């Protein structure tokens, strides 16, 4: 992607401490429109924390987080307003168990975007169709498999017309045979030009879909580049070590 266009997400010198533990120690990252940035790294390296700083689920200790031309962590910024435009999908799905799949996809459309019942319904069914779950719209989360729940969660986020999607290890909790359906949906999304930040351990996905791979360790970005660069010619020792363990 050309650097001429304005980045959708811009992270500048981000630090995050949990008490004495400094989890993020100065992260800089820019994500351009349509980019699929895959974030790799060992467990505990701060990937989730960084992602959660993007939509302010974690409050940065210092540094800047921008969504287009709005700084989310600025004093007095309307966090809820910014979050409308950032879709997030969690490892643990976090579907609302008291609502059907359709209800899950409709709720925020109605209450946050103020869409009419009929419009929210139409968009919900549209998004559920996209993730291949038209026939499960009236099911409650407890009646769906993990893979189906995760696809509903993706539909729920997409229904808000986000300008960027955050995925935090969305397939880690799934049985292997269910992983593929979810990845397929994400691939489709990437092909459609969605800007995505994806934390994953699915190397195949990273290689096929990622436009850029970022390797994190110890709260900093150690190395980044195209999938070919990072996977085939890693420069950093820790990257090599990590990739060696994975494969």
């Amino acid at each position: 992607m050309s650097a001429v266009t304005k980045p959708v997400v811009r992270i500048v010198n981000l630090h995050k401490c949990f008490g004495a533990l400094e989890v993020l120690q100065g992260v800089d990252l820019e994500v351009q429109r349509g980019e699929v940035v895959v974030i790799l790294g060992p467990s505990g390296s701060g990937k989730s924390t960084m992602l959660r700083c993007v939509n302010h689920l974690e409050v940065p200790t210092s540094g800047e987080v921008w969504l287009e031309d709005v700084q989310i962590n600025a004093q007095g910024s309307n966090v809820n307003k910014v979050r409308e435009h950032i879709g997030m999908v969690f490892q643990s799905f976090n579907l609302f168990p008291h609502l059907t799949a359709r209800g899950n996809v409709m709720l925020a459309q109605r209450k946050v975007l103020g869409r009419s019942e009929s419009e929210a319904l139409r968009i919900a069914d549209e998004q559920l169709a996209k993730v291949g779950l038209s026939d499960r719209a009236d099911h409650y989360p407890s009646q769906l498999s993990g893979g189906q729940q995760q696809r509903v969660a993706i539909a729920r986020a997409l229904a808000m017309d986000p300008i960027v999607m955050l995925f935090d290890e969305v397939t880690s909790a799934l049985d292997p045979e269910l992983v593929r359906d979810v990845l397929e949906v994400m691939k489709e999304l990437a092909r459609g030009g969605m800007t995505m930040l994806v934390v994953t351990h699915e190397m195949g996905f990273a290689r096929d879909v990622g436009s850029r791979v970022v390797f994190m360790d110890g709260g900093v970005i150690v190395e980044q580049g195209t999938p070919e660069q990072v996977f085939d010619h890693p420069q950093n020792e820790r990257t090599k070590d990590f990739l060696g363990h994975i494969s």
Partner: protein
Amino acid sequence: MNRPADIGARMRELTHKHRSRFFAVTLLAVLMALTLATQSFAMTAAKVTVDRDTGGQLTRFTFAATTDADEVVSEIDFLFPKGFDPEQASVKATLLDGLKRIPADYSHTIDLETGVVTVTFNPPIPAGSNLSMQIHNVMTPIAGGTYELPVEYSTTTTGVAGERRSLDGLTFKYKTPPRAEAFSRWLDNQDWVTSWNKVKFLNLFLKPQQFVRAVPLLFAGWLMSLALVLIAFPISIIGGLGTAFMKMAKIPPVRWLASIYINVIRGTPLFLQIFVVFIGLRTMGLRFPDFVSAVIVLAFNSSAYLAEIFRAGIQSISKGQFEAASSLGMTYWQAMRYVIIPQTVRRVLPTMTSEFILLFKDTALFAAVGIFELMLRSQNFVSRSGNLTAYVVAALYYLVITIPLINLVGRLERKLAQSEHGIVAAPSTRRSRRTPDLSSKPDQAATTPGSR
């Protein structure tokens, strides 16, 4: 016999002389004339009264009369109408000559077939005596009304054979007792009730007569207890929610305030709180109707318990739910309202119902400050009757509410457990790998703080 004529003459005289006094004197004269005129009949001034104003119970009949100057009475028969049972009757007679009491020797027989009580005087009653007779323990029929008690008697004028005379038109009346009372009196006469009551335990705790009396009497108390809790509980739901959010507030003093309130209320007996409010407020000059005070105490008390139930319930919802809502752009209150609270309600419903049951039973404490709820009413009933059946009736009134609710709690708990663990299990065989917070242990979390 000529005295009425005298009066008539004197009256005419007066009429001529003092027209203005005519009417007053006429009235007096007519009354006197009437009194004197009746002397020409047999027994005079006869009347019958009863000492109870409702039927269906052992009643004392009083018969008063004056024997005529020329009759000597040796026997008096009381012909009790159908439905009256004099089987257990006893008789007492008093004879007066003017103001002087004369000794009376008499005996009575009872004819159960005809319901006639015969009293024989030996020696006979002297002529011109004032006679007062009491017939105790006659069972009256339950149905009220005006009844006639015919009385017949035999005279033995000196040397002359006895003559039968009768007194008609002697009436008395009483009312039908209230339904429960009537039922109870009906039970008095049932053989099975008599045998039942011979068992000491049954007689003390389950006396049928007391039972049917207590049921309608305690009903008002039951309504009072129910009204107290039905009004106080919704208030405490609101108060409890408010306190729960205060306890979870970001500002420390707000949290402390909620903590102090919750701990003080949960750490002291409700009994003490009742006295503080009823006596304390009154001493401070704040006067509420007792019912209002009672609702205030109950609501204050229950709010503290519900606050902890709600807080635990809300905090038992996984953090992920709140984060998912937030990430969709919902505000704190939107997330609470549409995501957290609906899930909390399902989780706390069983515990809330248990709290309602506790509160309902706690209304009994208001007996101590004179609220006429179920407990005080049954206490009063017991102290009046000396029989504990009213307590059993009160227990049944409590149970009518609590047993179905206890049942409901059980059903809600089972339903909750099912929905928490997925009614239709997802086809995954490795569900445990899912983050545990989705199916965390809400039951303990939500139940523990509510239990007393």
